[in-house]
């Protein structure tokens, strides 16, 4: 044990750079004498480096470095070195005249093509997510089974997109052209912000979670008036409409318990319409799908199954209704569906069978007895 301590001291000195030549040599031999010594050293070294990486942050450097790299790769602009001023001016006059001429010529002969508005359509198939960068370099992560439409005039006459399904937006700020998302019958206006929208047609409700910045949500209420709701960071708005299916208690179930219902802004004029604004403590629950990670908190098995159907492009059916009412929390990274179901099986008494794209969940009575005993 005491030998170990001394060895650790030496390793520390070596990492710090304060050891003497002899100590370096002793440590080197110790590390390379066997595999367990090496992995002991590796653990200390990795912790040492990782700590250095997180504690020495200087994000300002990134901008300047990007400037240099952009110049070197010719992405931004090419610096013309050492040209005398007079020549530059003459060159500029010719260049401008030529550009105007060429543009006019092009405009004249291809007017139709330039102004013809066309549409881009991007779709993330079931079982896969898609990332895209819009012309103004706003970033969009599309969740499985979602689609986004925008016009070729995007970033020229406005910044409008139409969303069906779920997307996470990281919007480039531009005060002159506000960013507008049309989802079902609402419009979300944003300046430079990050937010998540969920509007799957089959779910009959729209959810928006704001991560940073500010967004306003517009919708036409019956009677033709436009109603506007402002959303602050870490707030989530839940709007159910039409033949709303979610009841109050189901809503409460779907939300992690910690989150207090702040206020209910809008009491339904038509009985079925409902807007709820809640503040969100852990916005990862709503946005984690865009990263590799997927987080769920106190999720009903029935709701989780719907999400899994999208993620893995399968259909899940329950043979026993009672399974739907179990709640489960956790996070998964890149597990296969099988691995995940095995993990769930450790806490929920189920059996499963996967045949091609069909998953059937059945209740395992033997496990149920065992687990029920544990929870008593």
């Amino acid at each position, binding site marked *: 044990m005491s030998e170990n301590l001394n060895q650790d001291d030496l390793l520390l000195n070596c990492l710090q*750079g304060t050891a003497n030549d002899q100590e370096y040599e002793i440590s080197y031999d110790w590390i390379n004498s066997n595999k367990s010594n090496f992995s002991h050293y590796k653990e200390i070294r990795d912790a040492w480096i990782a700590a250095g*990486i997180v504690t020495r942050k200087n994000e300002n450097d990134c901008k300047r470095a990007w400037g240099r790299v952009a110049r070197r790769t010719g992405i931004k602009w090419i610096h013309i070195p050492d040209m005398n001023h007079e020549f530059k001016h003459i060159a500029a006059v010719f260049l401008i005249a030529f550009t105007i001429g060429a543009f006019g010529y092009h405009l004249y002969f291809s007017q139709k093509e330039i102004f013809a508005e066309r549409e881009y359509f991007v779709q993330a198939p079931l079982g896969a997510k898609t*990332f895209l960068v819009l012309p103004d370099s706003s970033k969009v992560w599309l969740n499985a089974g979602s689609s986004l439409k925008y016009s070729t005039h995007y970033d020229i006459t406005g910044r409008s997109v139409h969303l069906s399904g779920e997307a996470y937006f990281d919007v480039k700020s531009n005060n002159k052209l506000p960013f507008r998302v049309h989802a079902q019958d609402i419009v979300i206006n944003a300046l430079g912000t990050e937010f998540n929208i969920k509007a799957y047609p089959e779910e009959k409700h729209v959810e928006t979670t704001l991560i940073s910045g500010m967004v306003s949500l517009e919708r036409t209420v019956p009677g033709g008036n436009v109603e506007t709701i402002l959303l602050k960071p870490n707030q989530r708005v839940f709007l159910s409409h039409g033949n709303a299916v979610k009841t109050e208690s189901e809503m409460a179930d779907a939300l992690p318990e910690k989150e207090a219902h702040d206020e209910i802004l809008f009491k339904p004029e038509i009985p079925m319409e409902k807007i709820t604004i809640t503040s969100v403590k852990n916005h990862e629950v709503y946005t984690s799908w865009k990263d590799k990670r997927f987080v769920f908190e106190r999720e009903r098995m029935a709701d989780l199954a719907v999400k899994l159907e999208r993620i893995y492009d399968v259909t899940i059916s329950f043979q026993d209704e009672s399974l739907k009412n179990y709640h489960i929390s956790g996070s998964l990274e890149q597990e296969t569906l099988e691995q995940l179901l095995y993990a769930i099986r450790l806490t*929920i008494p189920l059996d499963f069978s996967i045949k091609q794209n069909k998953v059937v969940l059945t209740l395992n009575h033997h496990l149920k007895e065992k687990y029920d005993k544990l929870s008593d």
Partner: protein
Amino acid sequence: MENLDKQILKELKYGSKAAFESLFKIHYSPLRRYAEEILRDPDQAEDVVENLFVIIWEDRKKIDIHTSFKSYLYRSTFNACLNLIRKKKSENRYRDFFLHHAYFSKSHDYGSGSYPLSGIIEKEIDEKLESAINNLPPQCKNIFIMSRVDGLSHQEIADKLGLSVNTVKSQIMNALKKINVVLKEILTVFVFVIL
């Protein structure tokens, strides 16, 4: 390979500047800090990472990635650092081993194929590690920061705080052990249930 990476790679091959810019902005800072850890020289670290991105842009059509962009970038950074170190004449090869984190290794079994942090680079480490460091007991954290960030020697820290050198060393080891526990946690996934 992950979808986002595939998408970026695909767009990069088409020559999308926006894809290149987002790749740069996501990875530059951590890569630079990583290179700084290996080279122990901020200016050289800056050069290495900038060169790496310039090469990626120039060779974008030829890039072939099987794992992920992240591990590709870290591995390339590590290799570029090693090439730079090899060019310099070393005064003491044993010293170089530690200063540059396994610049050469006697036994290829444990040395090659593993570059520092290779096991966890796929994961998002920053946030969890930062909170692990912030949650260290105040004395321990203080000592660790003095050693790790301010680069003070154990003796200097001991003098400043009126402690013995041995206490300083064991506090630093404690901090490293706790950080290592977090590194290992990052590798595991948990699923639990609330009924």
